[in-house]
Structures are given as C-alpha cells and as structure tokens.
C-alpha cells in the first residue's frame, strides 16, 4: 500500500486514479488495520463478498485492471505489485509494470501497453461454465460462514476450489477463515508447489518487449 501511494503521488495530476479494493470476507475487521496504518490518499474500498473478483473473474491478489476515461477495460487482470517486497517469493521485478502504468497515465490510449480489442477479448474469454458455478459455491460458503455455519461452509468452499482450481482467492480466503490442514488437508505452500511454483501462482504481466527478452537465450 505505501508503494501504491508513491505511484499515486507521481501520477494523480495526469487524470489518473487508483481504486484499491480489499477482498476480505472479514471486512474492516481484517482489512481495516492495513488501511489505517498506511492511510493512503487514493480510494480504498472494502469488499466482503469478493464482488470485484466475481465481476472481473479475478483469481488472485494483487490483481490490477486498467480502465480508461470511458469506463472501458484496456488491460485485464494481471499481477500488480507496487514494489519488490515479495520479489524473493514471486521472482517478479515490479519496475516494468510500473513503467507501463506511467506510460499509460502519460499517453492514454496511445500507450503501447493499452491492449487491442482482439487481444482483450482473447484474454478475457471465459469458456468454462464451471467457473460460474464455482462463484456461487464460494458465495454460499461465505454466507454460511458469516451466518454461524463455519463447518457447513467448508464443503462449499471445497466445491468452489474444485470447480475453479485456478482461483487462489477461493483457496486462501477459505484457509484464512479456518485451518488449511484440518479443513482442507493441505497448506498454501503445498498448493503453490503442486501447481508448479510461484511462476504459476503469479504469471508475469504480458508486457510488450518484456517476455520476449526473457525468453531470449544468451
């Protein structure tokens, strides 16, 4: 959060806003401390029902989406770090993504990082109907948990995880509400390793030039 405050200070005069949304079933109780500690001047919202993840088909945090002046998406879901504090785990360098944001704030739709409609459609296509059912199972799990049925919530969280195995949000939020080992027979680290490590957990942003460079053999 302090990292994003720095970016916001640099770009807020360029018709640029940050809207940061906490995906926390526990709401202010869990997310509040982070906000009061960092007291950012950009807008931070509390999303107990994970509505934004549901609407945008997000599967992890932090996720960034670029939205232009007309309310249209110009870059869809991708990992969004403001600094390198988790670099040891993620292996991600935040600089290319932050430079891309600055370029977009400056040039708008002329920025090379604003995606074409075709590419957006390709990236945003949801072909698996299970993903939709998974979101309902997760929503039911959240409702049951909050209405005093934590045990009854578990099979629905499990079903959401089974139907949308790519969603880390479904796993991590459920683990945080109970005990991963006891309730789900696993841990976060085990799941990341099973999936193929941190590169799968946080696929690097698809930035022009970036991946081509990395793939190039010396």
């Amino acid at each position, binding site marked *: 959060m302090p990292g*994003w405050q720095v970016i916001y200070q640099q770009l807020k005069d360029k*018709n*640029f*806003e*940050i*809207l*940061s*949304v*906490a*995906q*926390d079933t*526990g709401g*202010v109780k*869990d*997310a509040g*401390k*982070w*906000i009061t500690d960092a007291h950012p001047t950009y*807008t*931070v*919202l*509390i*999303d107990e*029902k994970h*509505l*934004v*993840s*549901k609407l*945008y*088909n*997000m599967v992890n*945090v*932090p*996720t*960034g989406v*670029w*939205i*232009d*002046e007309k*309310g*249209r998406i110009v870059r869809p879901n991708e990992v*969004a770090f403001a600094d390198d504090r988790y670099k040891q785990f993620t292996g991600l360098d935040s600089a290319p993504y932050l430079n891309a944001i600055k370029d*977009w704030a400056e040039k*708008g739709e002329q920025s090379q990082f604003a995606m074409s409609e075709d590419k*957006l459609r390709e990236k*945003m296509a949801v072909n698996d109907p299970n993903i*939709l*059912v998974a*979101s*309902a*199972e997760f*929503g*039911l799990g959240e*409702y*049951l948990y909050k*209405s005093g*049925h934590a045990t*009854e919530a578990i099979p629905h969280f499990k*079903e959401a995880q089974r139907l949308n195995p790519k969603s880390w949000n479904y796993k*991590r939020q459920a683990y945080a509400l109970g005990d991963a080992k006891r309730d789900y027979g696993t841990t976060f680290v085990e799941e990341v390793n099973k999936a193929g490590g941190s590169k799968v957990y946080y696929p690097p942003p698809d930035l022009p030039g970036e991946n081509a460079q990395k793939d190039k053999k010396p």
Partner: protein
Amino acid sequence: MMRLRFPAGFLLFALIASAFATAKETRATVVYDDVSTDIASANEEADQIWITTTDLKQATRFEVKPQGVCRDVLCFPLPKARHNEFLRKEGAKSWFNLTAFAALVHQPVAHDAGTSAWYFGLRSDQRQGLSSLQAPDFTLPDINGKMHSLSDFRGKKVLLLTWASW
C-alpha cells in the same frame, strides 16, 4: 359401462399438482444479489425451490408481470409453452420456481441442503460487461462506510487493484 374421460392436459396438471403436494414445505434462506432473506414457507423438491410471488418480490425485487419477470427496467419474458415450469397457483397462493428462473437467465445456483440455504449468483445481464469490454460497475463502502462506485471515476484513467489481508 360409463367411462370418465379427462383431457390429456388435465391429467398432466393432476400429475404435476400431486407431485407438488408431496414437496417438502420448509423454511429456507435465499441469498440473492448477496442479500439474504428468510423464507417462512418454501417448497423444496430435489434441486428446485419454489417460493411465493410475494416472497419473490421481497427476496429479489423481481415481480411477475404479464410481460415477464421484471425489476425496474429489466424484464425477462417467460417462454409461454413452459409457463408451468415457472408458475403455479395453489389456492390463494402463487408459487414461483426460482431455480427454473435462474436457469432461464443463466444464473448459477448453489444449495446447502442441511441449512436450506440457496445462493443465486450473477445473472447473464450482470455479466455482459466483460464481453462488451466495458468495465463492470460496482458500489462498495470505504473504511468509514461511505459508498463509492467505479462509475464515479468516469472521465479519468483508473487503476483498479485488488488486495487482501490474508
């Protein structure tokens, strides 16, 4: 010998009516648009839930009108030939099959049998944003409870970020 003849339609109606009579009348909870409503008297049959049209309005704000099932400017016409799948009259009560309606509007449903809780997810009209590349709008509170919408920021470039404490 006297034979009683009933039109086929009547027999079908009688069959449906008797099946309905054996359905379990129960308390249930409907979570719709992430708002939960207790339903004092619902009819649950396997993976279907019927609620009265009065409860329908209370739980979903949808109402059955001649042109379809409507809320504000939104209206979903019911297929005429399949009317019985959605609506039944029983004495003074009108029953509405909320699960059949969910299937009609491509809305996912999750059900917990033990607690009789039914969760209804995003309808197709709430998901159209993504195919049009328009960013789906939402309204959520900040830490002080003040509400903000994505659309409040129209005219500006917005970096939408999600994060979590966990």
